[in-house]
């Protein structure tokens, strides 16, 4: 057993599951997408990224890249949410909500890629 793998695996899978929960529901309906869930997704994704900093192996580099993609998408989603609700006070209209969920969907895809790489790497080395 490899403690580092357990910790990283936990965070990356949790990031994916939380993101999936946020993504689920009617795309343009604000009632189906919880702001606290998005907050949790962002935090867990940042943790997963932080845990990959410093790994000099090839797989580590790819995992860092996919994590960064997820972070970027989520940060844009959060920024959009904040702008719509607090700055322009347009509110969570269906088209704003759809854009935010679309961004989180992209991040979800990056999370899925991370998990696939993690599983493939583990199976290859059969540790």
């Amino acid at each position, binding site marked *: 057993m490899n403690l*580092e793998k357990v910790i990283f695996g936990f965070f990356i899978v949790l990031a994916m599951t939380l993101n999936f929960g946020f993504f689920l529901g009617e795309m343009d309906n604000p009632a189906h997408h919880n702001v606290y869930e998005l907050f949790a997704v962002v935090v867990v994704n940042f943790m997963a990224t932080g845990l990959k*900093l410093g*790994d000099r*192996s090839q797989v*580590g580099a790819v995992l860092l890249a996919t994590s960064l993609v997820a972070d970027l998408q989520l940060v844009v989603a959060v920024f959009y949410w904040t702008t719509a609700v607090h700055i322009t006070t347009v509110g969570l209209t269906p088209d704003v909500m759809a854009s935010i969920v679309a961004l989180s969907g992209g991040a979800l895809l990056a999370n899925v890629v991370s998990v696939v790489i993690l599983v493939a790497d583990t199976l290859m080395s059969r*540790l």
Partner: protein
Amino acid sequence: MAAAVDLSRVIFIVLREMRKPILAIVIVYSLSIAGMILMPGPVVDGKTQYLSIFHAFYFMTYTATTTGFGEIPFPYSNAQRFWAIVCLYISVITWFYAIGSIIRLVQNPFLAKALAEHDFSNKVARISGDFIIICGFGDTGSVLARGLSDARLTAVVIDSNEERIKALQLRDYKVPMPGLFADASVPKHLIEAGIRRADCKAIVSVTSNEETNLKISAMARILNPGIEVITKSKVEIWEETLATIGGKVHIIDPFKTYAQLLAFSIEQRYFYSFNNWLVGEKSTELEQPLSPPDNGLWIICGFGRMGQEIKRALNKQGLKTAIIDPQPISPDEEDVENFVLGLTTVRTLKLAGIEQAVGIVTGTDDDGQNVSILLNARSINPNIFTVVRQNSHENFAAFQAAKADMVMQPSLVAARRIMLLLKAPLLKPFFKYFLVNQDRADEMNKVISWVKACVGDKVPLLTSFDITQSNAKVLTRILENDSVQLGDLLKDPRDRTKSLDLVALVVKSGDENIFILPGSDYLVKENDQLLFCGTDLGYRLFLATVNNEYKLYHVRTGLRQPRSFFMQWYVRKMGREGL
């Protein structure tokens, strides 16, 4: 540089050949277009219409190529139609002439050769990493190319027979093997083959002509003083010249090599099968010893190069020899028990003493004769040990059916010897260690069973590995201020309690120190040369270990090196070495 010269030559030939057809087309087009413009067209709205230059050119374009889109922009007048007929015939004929010239140009043998050379030097330029030049793609050359391809080593082939190069291009090699139909002893072609490049490791000249081989070797030495020259020679006077061209030169004499092999096999019964198994002979049973009789009379049929070498080897082992040959031998020849003059027949075999003989060597240069001698000898003395020479690869099936104890195929022997020189030069000291002393037979048997246990029924992989910056980046960095045990490197990175299917046979450290079967506590150094035998998977896992710091740390310590900054901090805080 060579490529550019070739390309300019190709362009020059094309331009020169195309000069007249292009000129003819330009003249015919311009005359036709001028005529079409001048011809008065139909009268529309009281005005005579003339074709514009654009329309005339458009008309000529589809007329000259016999497409024929019709009369535009108005139906033509008879004057225009008259000129159109003239244009059509002249321009179509001119086009045919131009196309004929192009076809003739493509068929021009000089152009084809220049294009092939250009293509070849482009392919050579695209090779990245080490490669080898093979001159001569005969039996030896093709066996060698196959072996190199299996070992993922690229080779560049030059042969003076066009058919052979075509044959090369049809083979399915795992690595690129560009081939050129040219005379390899011409320096220009050697340069095209990349002999001056630093990553050209060796040149192997195995053409059927001894003189050409010598010439190629000498040229190669002049063009690249550092290159390893390997050549096949069956004539002793050439060998002297070759040995003096300087640098690293290996002269392969298949007969001498085989005679040595026979002598070693007499000394150690497992040697022959082990050697054959290592070079990848598929039908070899490792456990099956081959023991040529070491006591009694051997008959040598045909006292050519092979007969002489084998006689010398047998005499050295203290064996008696009888010779049958149509040519009288020199009276100075020593240790000849019995000499029979004449072709080998039942009569001469009996005269030579076949009834009492323990072994027979059929070494003539005629395959039919060799097989028939073998059958004759067996009919008189069924238990005799047979060594038979197979000259041509095509007769393989006949020799296999004849079931001789040892079959000697000069081209194969040479190809394998060259292969080992290139791929596993440390095998020589390895075998020398066991053969120098009879008492080491048990030790050798132990090695054989060890290697066999490692490889199992798979094809054995025999490979050299140099611990250098480029081969093992991580390992060399660690070696700068730490020591690493060979045994740790050979642990399975997936489960370090197991070892890889890889046996280190020899380690060469520096120029002098050679360790046979180094122990697992051997401390590796940078620039050590290792010879491994094992499986392909084992070797790949080994390469992964020496190039991945986390795997290397794990096999050495059993602990896991923390990868991320966070875990590094955690481990430091807990005061531990790893996870």
